[in-house]
């Protein structure tokens, strides 16, 4: 059996407060290669904490998190950063595109950290933009794009460097229904290409398109049929 992309075992995350807040309570699940998983739940349920843990932005208080077979909870800060840049592509609700840089430059940004060669970077960025159907907008500034186009640019950036996991935080939260549809179609395409996708969302439309759905309530994770 191949190594799962994500393997969470009994992960807890406590926030120091009086009394301590338990944002994740004994969370265990796996995501296999090529899975398309939606994490749903109301706000304050621990969705963001889970995303931060999955994205190696935050450390669980206890438990084990293996990403691509690497135990991450024992890694030092620098190694986690390296792994994050190497394996995870982030897609944010607010896109996080640099306003003063053209679309292709924003996509190229994904490769400046870590040991990627400078040579051919632009071509790879153009390829990624082609992949998300944005080949005709490469030299635009982000503020000239529609919301859907911006999110697709951000996804092209996340796809640079061939990550093993696409981690999306409310990717359609700022989009209208038509753009949402386009982004979801793109997810389907990418998944068909074999990419592993984890989407955190509270929108029913998004979660129903995913292959698997887990619900998180008060830090407890439940797999939905």
């Amino acid at each position, binding site marked *: 059996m191949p190594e799962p992309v994500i393997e969470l075992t009994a992960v807890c995350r406590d926030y120091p407060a009086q009394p301590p807040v338990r944002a994740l309570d004994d969370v265990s699940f796996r995501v296999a290669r090529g899975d398309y998983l939606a994490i749903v739940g109301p706000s304050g349920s621990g969705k963001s904490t889970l995303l931060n843990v999955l994205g190696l932005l*935050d450390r669980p208080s206890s438990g084990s998190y293996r990403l691509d077979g690497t135990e991450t909870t024992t890694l030092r800060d620098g190694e986690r*950063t390296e792994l994050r840049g190497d394996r995870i592509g982030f897609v944010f609700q607010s896109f996080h595109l640099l306003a003063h840089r053209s679309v292709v430059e924003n996509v190229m940004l994904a490769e400046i950290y870590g040991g990627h060669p400078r040579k051919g970077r632009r071509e790879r960025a153009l390829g990624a933009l082609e992949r998300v159907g944005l080949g005709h907008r490469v030299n635009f500034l982000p503020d000239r794009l529609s919301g859907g186009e911006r999110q697709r640019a951000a996804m092209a950036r996340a796809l640079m460097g061939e990550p093993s996991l696409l981690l999306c935080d409310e990717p359609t939260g700022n989009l209208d229904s038509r753009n949402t549809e386009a982004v979801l179609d793109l997810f389907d395409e990418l998944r068909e290409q074999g990419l592993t996708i984890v989407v955190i969302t509270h929108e029913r439309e998004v979660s129903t398109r995913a292959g698997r759905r887990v619900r998180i309530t008060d830090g407890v994770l439940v797999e939905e049929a």
Partner: protein
Amino acid sequence: MHVRDLVGEAVAGMLARPVRSALTTLGTVLGITTLVITLGVAATAGNQIVGRFDELVATAITVEVPESTNGPLVAWDSLDRVTRLRGVVSAAAVAETKDSSNLSVRSNDLVDPARVTTQTLTVLAATTGLPEAARGRIVQGRFYDVGHVKRADRVAVLGDQAAKMLGVTDLDRAPAIFIGKHAYTVIGILGDLRRERNLSSAVIVPPTVGKQFGLRDVTRVLVNTSLGAADLIAGQAPDALSPGNGDQLQVIAPPSPTRARDQAQDDVNALFLILGLVSLAVGAVGIANVTLVTVMERVAEIGLRRSLGAARRHIAAQFLLESTLIGLAGGVIGASVGVVAVVAVSAAKQWTPLLDVRLAIGAPIAGAVVGLLAGLYPALRAARMEPVDALR
């Protein structure tokens, strides 16, 4: 991370807000400009002081001829060999002994009980080039010439003080003075001496006449050189005057120009220097302030970069480099403005601008260092930011 990527990101970050970056550099520009102007003008003015110095002192050489038991060391006619040297503007040989320095001199033979008519004056013999060599001016009459010398004419030239003391004011009626028992016709009065001022209270006679007072041998040679030739002539003059015995002559040459220049450069206006440093410090605070604001504004960008795999040091390096570049830009602009100002001041004052290469190179570096120091704290703040917080 590739260095070129780092530089690219820093430059892009700086150019993203061009107006703000330009305003941020302003403090550094002012500080560096003030420093460059202060140091540049001080150096230029210092050089100017040396320039004026040169004309009076730096071209004057005196050769002292010691007494010698076997014949004179310097013959009267050897002066020609010195005047022939390239770089010599004027020269004169002078004879003065202890005995000749207090001879009694009278302006007439009458004994006037109401006046002191007898003065004790220095009598010295000199060649015909003395007025030029002493940088003086014939106030009245004329100096004796080669003819007078050859014929051993009993003529004398008075220094202006000596003339006043002897009551000689008008040469029209060819007044005479008495040195010892003999009368001499006063044919000229020498004044406005800028060298050898003691000549103004002396009686000067031709060498052929001076023999009567024991002024047989040359005791001193005055030489004036053109600018910059003093060192060379100081080396050549003794041998020209006394071939074979040059080393026995004592040459008094002006201090070498470099030393004079060093002294002049100590005259740096300390107040302006402090002013420049203060504006530089204010500029640094300005950069620190704006960079800190920029860091706070770019929290989301920092979060994004962390999510893309940027380590803390990458974030720190980028902000540090941005502030350093802003400081460097301020330094370059400041140095340019300062240099232009120094040249403008020099042009207005008709000075030769003196621009030190080290200043032109050092000023931008100083600006960069200011930027670097100013960026330390903001960069540290940016690097310390937790990616989770930054992305929230």
